[in-house]
Each structure stands twice: as C-alpha cells, then as structure tokens.
C-alpha cells in the first residue's frame, strides 16, 4: 500500500519561509548581497559612507527618533543615542569593528588550532593525547563565564577581546584538522612523500594542510557569525570593547534602559547583528554544500 504523506498530497506546498530559506541556501547571491551591504561595504568604506562621526555627539540632539517618526530628521535617519550620536553612523562603523575583531580572532585562533591539530593528528601518541585533552578542556569551559573572568582579570581592550576569542576558538579548529589529518596521513601520497625524504614539517605543510583547507574555510565562515555574536555578547555585558567604541553589542547595552521610550537605540544594532549572522550562516551552509563532495553529489 502506498504511503500517503503531506509531501505527496497535491495541494501540499512547503511554507514560504522554509522555501525562501532553502533557496537562499542553494544560491549564495542572497547572503552574499546581504553581507556585502551590511558588513563589507560599511566596514571598508565606513569613513566615506557614514553620515557622521560615530564618536561625536550633541546632548541637545539626544534621543532623536528615526526619520519616519515624529520628531525625527533625515539628518539622523535611524535616530540618535542618549548622548546625541548618530545611530546609523555607529552601526556602519560598528560593522568595521565586528569584521576586524572576528577576522583577526578567527585568523589567529584558526592558525593556532590548525597547527596544533596537524601536529596532533600527524604525530599521534602522547602528542595527540595531550593536545586532545587540552581541546576537551577548552571545549568544556563555559564560554561567556571564561570570557568575563579573563576580561575582568586584564581589563577590557581590543587586544583582550581578541585574546579571549582566540582562547575560545582554537580548539574547534584543532579537533577538525586533527580528524582530517588522521585520515589523510594514511593515504599513499603521504607514504610516498615520506619515502622521498620529506620532513615532518614539509609533509604537514605541503601535503596535508592543502587537503584540509576546504573544511577550514567552511568552519571559518560559519564562525564569523558566531564570533560576531560572542563579541556582541561580551560588549553587551561590559566585558568587550571599551566605550565609546561603536560596537554593536555596546550599542544594544546602551539602549536597554531606554527600550520603552527610545527603542531605536538598541533595535537597529540588534537587527544589524541578526541579519549579518543570518547571512554568514547561509553563506557557510552554501560553502559547506559546495565543498563537501558527499553533499555535492546528492
């Protein structure tokens, strides 16, 4: 007897949102466009694009609503915060902050994790055991709590935030690379390289590393969103970048007391975070589908 499910019924059509998400994941144009407009252009051209200096305020213009609300002006399209700074300009400059923080943290954390992962997988034995226990410890630490403790100990600054994020990120790279290295090192071309007299460093750098790059790109892309969220959370909790840096998390924190009367102060940076992370996740999905041979064949 044939099984009848909702999908086989002639009048069934998947929800529009689900369809849209599937389409967005299938074609990278949407997330790429979102990313370009939300993150890349503002980050690169912040000084040119932003209508105002993000640090300059005027108490006389404090808490101006967005342009379309009564009392709002086109001079400050998204309104002003409690010391009269332009919200739009701060969001634009905040994109640069988010991008720089996440890229630097991912690069440093990724480099460290990849190196340790390659060593762990390639050498095996006690090196593997030691490094993997370190990874286990690192992955079991409560992220936000650890970050708060570290920031409380050394004080908030750009360097501290990067340091905290690196401590939180490296283990994922190490585990991923180690797993792939374990499989790759058993393959014939590695054995041939060894017979040809290649050193351990050369084998890891020239023969194994290129084979794990695709996975690293996917992980890094997916982590940009995670890092932006983490950095925003740290800033929101006062353990991130110092004020008056135009960081999105800080902007949300600034507005949380005013949510009833001046919702725009925290709403727009919140939307910026949400859309950016969504775009990065969609892009990450697409990259994974593209680079993963199993998924590609499906």
């Amino acid at each position: 007897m044939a099984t009848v499910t909702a999908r086989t019924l002639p009048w069934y059509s998947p929800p529009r949102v689900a369809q849209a998400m599937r389409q967005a994941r299938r074609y990278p144009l949407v997330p790429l466009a979102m990313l370009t407009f939300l993150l890349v252009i503002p980050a690169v051209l912040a000084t040119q694009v932003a209508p105002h200096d993000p640090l300059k305020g005027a108490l006389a213009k404090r808490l101006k609503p967005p342009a379309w609300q009564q009392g709002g002006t086109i001079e400050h399209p998204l309104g002003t915060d409690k010391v009269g700074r332009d919200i739009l300009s701060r969001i634009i400059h905040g994109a640069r902050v988010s991008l720089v923080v996440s890229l630097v943290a991912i690069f440093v954390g990724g480099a460290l994790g990849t190196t340790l992962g390659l060593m762990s997988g390639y050498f095996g034995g006690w090196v593997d055991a030691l490094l993997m226990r370190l990874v286990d410890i690192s992955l079991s630490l409560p992220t936000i709590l650890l970050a708060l403790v570290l920031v409380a100990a050394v004080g908030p600054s750009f360097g501290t935030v990067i340091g905290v994020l690196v401590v939180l990120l490296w283990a994922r790279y190490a585990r991923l690379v180690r797993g792939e290295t374990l499989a790759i090192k058993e393959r014939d071309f590695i054995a041939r390289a060894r017979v040809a007299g290649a050193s351990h460093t050369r084998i890891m750098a020239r023969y194994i590393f290129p084979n794990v790059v695709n996975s690293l790109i996917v992980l890094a892309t997916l982590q940009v969103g995670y890092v932006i969220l983490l950095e925003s959370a740290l800033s929101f909790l006062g353990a991130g970048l110092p004020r008056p840096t135009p960081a999105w998390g800080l902007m949300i924190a600034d507005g949380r007391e005013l949510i009833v009367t001046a919702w725009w102060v925290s709403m727009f940076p919140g939307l910026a975070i949400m859309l950016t992370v969504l775009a990065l996740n969609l892009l990450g999905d697409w990259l994974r589908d593209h680079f993963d041979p199993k998924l590609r064949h499906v």
Partner: protein
Amino acid sequence: MRPRLVSPALVLLLVALLFGLGTAPMSGSAQEAKGQRLVFASAGFDESNRFWVVARPDHLQYDPFLETLLEVDPKTGEYTPRLAEKWSASPDFKEWTFILRKGVQFHFGYGPFTARDVIHSHSMMMRPEATATLAGFWRQVEEVKAINDHEVVFRFKRPSTVMPYAASRAGDLRIVSKVQWDKEGLEGFEKRPAGTGSYRYVGRQPGLSVSFERVDNHWKGEKPAFKELVFRLAREESTRLALLLSGEAHIADLPRELQKDALKRGMKIYSSSFPVDWMTVYLGGQYYMPGDPAFKPDVAWTKKSVRQALNMAINRKELLNTVFAGKGSMTYVTGWSEKSEGFNPEWQHRFDKMYGYDPAKAKALLKEAGYGPGQLKFKILAFTEPGESEGPQVAEALGIYYKDIGVATEIEVLDWAKVREMFRKKAIQCCIWPNIISWRPSEEWIRTSYYSKSPNHHYENEFVDKHYDALTKSVKPDERQRIARTIADHLFEEFADIPLFWFANEVVANPKVVAEWVYPGLAAGRSTHFHLVRPPAK
C-alpha cells in the same frame, strides 16, 4: 530548525522580550502591599552587616534597624535627640558628653541600651579593618568613657566641632549590642544583628535582598505602616523599572532618564527635603605633597591649565538639562553649599569666567600646556551606587565634550569598590571619574577628600594640609569660617576638580502603595526614614 539558525532566532527572541518589557501590565500586588510588605528596589550596596567597613551610601541597609545617637530631622535637617536625649561639648570642643535614653531595648532580647553599647559600637570603628567613611574621624577619639549607664563622654585628641553630624543618622556610628557581641561574637552579629530601630533584621540573601520586620513596641513609638520591609537589589536600571511597573517593588531608585517612563505609568517622584548630593568629576593623580612617589608629572592634569581646560569644555547647563532633567543647581567648589563653613558668594560671580563653557578657550589652554588635538587621551571611569544612577551617562557626556576639544577618552564601567580601591591606593593617575557625594560639614569634607593623611586621595598639597590642621585646632566660629574659606578659595582658584551640580535625592514610588514619605536625604543611605512611609488612606 537548523542549529545555526538558532543564534539569529535568539537575537529576535531577545529583541521581542525587550519590547515585551514596554508593554508589561502592572500587577495587582499594589493592593497586597498595603500595610503588609514594602519593597524598595535599590541599585545595591556593599552588602555586609559590619557597618564599620562600608561607605555612607551603603548605610541604607542599616537605616531601618540600627539607630544612632542623634536623629536628622526629616523636615528641618537639624540634629535632634534619638538614642541620646541630650548632648554638649566642652569649651575646647575636645569632650562631648551624651546623656543616653533609658528604657530602650535591643531586638531579640539582648537587654537594655546602655553606655557600654556606645563604647562597644565605637570600638568597632577602631578595628584595623574599619574602612567606613568616618572611620578616620572616629580614630581621633582618645577615649570613650562611661560615666554611668546612661552618660558617656567622647574625648578627642583635638577639638571636634563636627561631632553632632558624625553621631547622627547622617554619620556612620551605628549602635549595636555589646551583650550580643559578648555572647555570640562576630558570627552571631553577622547572622542576626540586634539593633533598636522600629524595624528588626530578618535576613539577607546575598545579591538579592535584605529583609526587615516591624517592631511593635519601639521605644519612641515609631510605628511603621508596613509590617515587612524588603530592599530588593537590582543592579540594572531597567530591571528596577520593571520591578516597579510590574508591582514587584513599590519604590525604586531610578535615574532621571527612566523616571519619565515611570511617571507616564502613573508613578510618583519623592524627593528628599534638601539638595544633599553633589556631582563632581575627580582628576586622579593629584598628589602634590613633596616627595610623594605616587605623583607622576606626566599626568596631564597636574598642569593647572589642563584642569581649567577640562572644566571649560563642559556645557554644564546642557548637561544638567538633559541628563538630570534640569533638576539641580550649580556647584562652584566641590562640597561647599551655601550652608557650609567657608562658602564664598563671590564664586558664583567668577564661575562663568573661570569655569564656564568655552571650547575654544579650552583648546587654547590645552595647546598652551603642550597638548594639541589628539595628543591627550585618558580613561573616564564610571560606576553606579544607590541614588547615583547617572554616573555612566555623565561619563559618556564628558567623552563627547572632550572629543570636541580634541581629547580622546575611553570609558570603563567598574564597580564602585574597585574605583574606591584605586583612589585609596593612589593608583588612579590614568583616569578621571564622576562621583556623587552627600553633603557633610566642611571640616569633615576636607578631611575625607583633600587632607593628605585621609584614606581618600583626591587633591592634596601642603597648603591644604597646613590650613586643615589650623581648622581642626580652631573653635572660634569667625576664625573657622576664614580658614575654611581659605581652603575652598584655593580649591576654586586651582581647579582642583570639576564641580558640577547639587541635587536632591529622588526615588520613584507607586502612589497606590506610597502616599507620603518625608525624608531628609542628609542621612547616611540617602533614602531613609522608612517608618515615615505612609500608604494611602483606605
């Protein structure tokens, strides 16, 4: 839902929840509160039953149950009898005699209040760990002698004219039971301190609340309208607003910014009877006593012109009208009000020229001191304490003003305890910090803030020390007036710090629960006299 879509969804949920706050309906617990339970949502304090280790604003937690020798009249601000019926000073102001009230019983059956309890309470202030605001003052006492059970004499090393203030509800000498201490020691005191107030201590949940219950046979006949009193701690301003609007709290300590929201929802503001607090911005690292290793000449504001520039960069009127909703008046010299010894009416006339808003002149002064645009950078520290919610906002505003004169700033929000530790250890050369401080007599103010031997180190030099020593030895009113004015004039001329505003203490209450509340604001803890909170008539 795919795992990676969880994060954006959480952001959406957070935003939705935040908006939900704005539409939260008021609960019906206002009715429940009538005559039963009064909840005050406070920004929090240094939680401890050891009154000898906390600062004056933190005495809010003792006000309902630990009494003092003298009262501060809620309407007139005068010092009036409390546990002491009478008091007098010797002609040289070195001896103060207090006649104690008879028939006062400590809570929990620890017996009657006597001179021994006064001596014991003072001995707490002499303990090595005592860091209370007036601990330094109490250490000047050479001897506390019981003449009999109801008469006690404080003998000072030098004249003390500020004793009534220090022994009053504005000071920090809380009277506790010697019998309890002998029986149970510090452990028992920490667990359930006995006082003599019209509320007695019930307990505290660290980080959450302190609770008290009404005493039905208070010696003075004080009869609080509410059976239970709870100080609910909520560091976040929006949380305190939410507690108030939802009916979980009936009074809340809110910044003026949020008071507007509360007023729109039918809440009412209660102000202290007097303008009692001033806000000033301290400049760290002004240690000018010769040979002080903490003095760093490269700290920009060790130059007078930089101090003047930092003053002239601020548009005080704008700051007052925006951040403080126009509720306040100008301070000309930090700590000096019209009723202070040494107040000089001339300051008002000269203030605009010397301190008034003039960014162009501020820039020129900085240039003259060797700081061109972008060459001066420092940190502004911000913190909040009960009744001091505006600190971080003022810090942000200062950053805006300083940016206009080419000075870069970074704002760091810390706990008050951390900031206090930094300036007490003279490790705050990096920073400036806005602070709200309660009024106190000039001599005591100079001692705590400017005298080099005090635990706080704000601005100290030989000139202030020399004149302060002279002030402490003087008992003639005219002479004292002259000396106090000399010190205050010096601080004015030298731009010792950045004086901003005087204002009254304000709290917001639900009028369905609180119909009347008169408190002076001068008492330690600011929002005090909870026995005078009256509910609406039924």
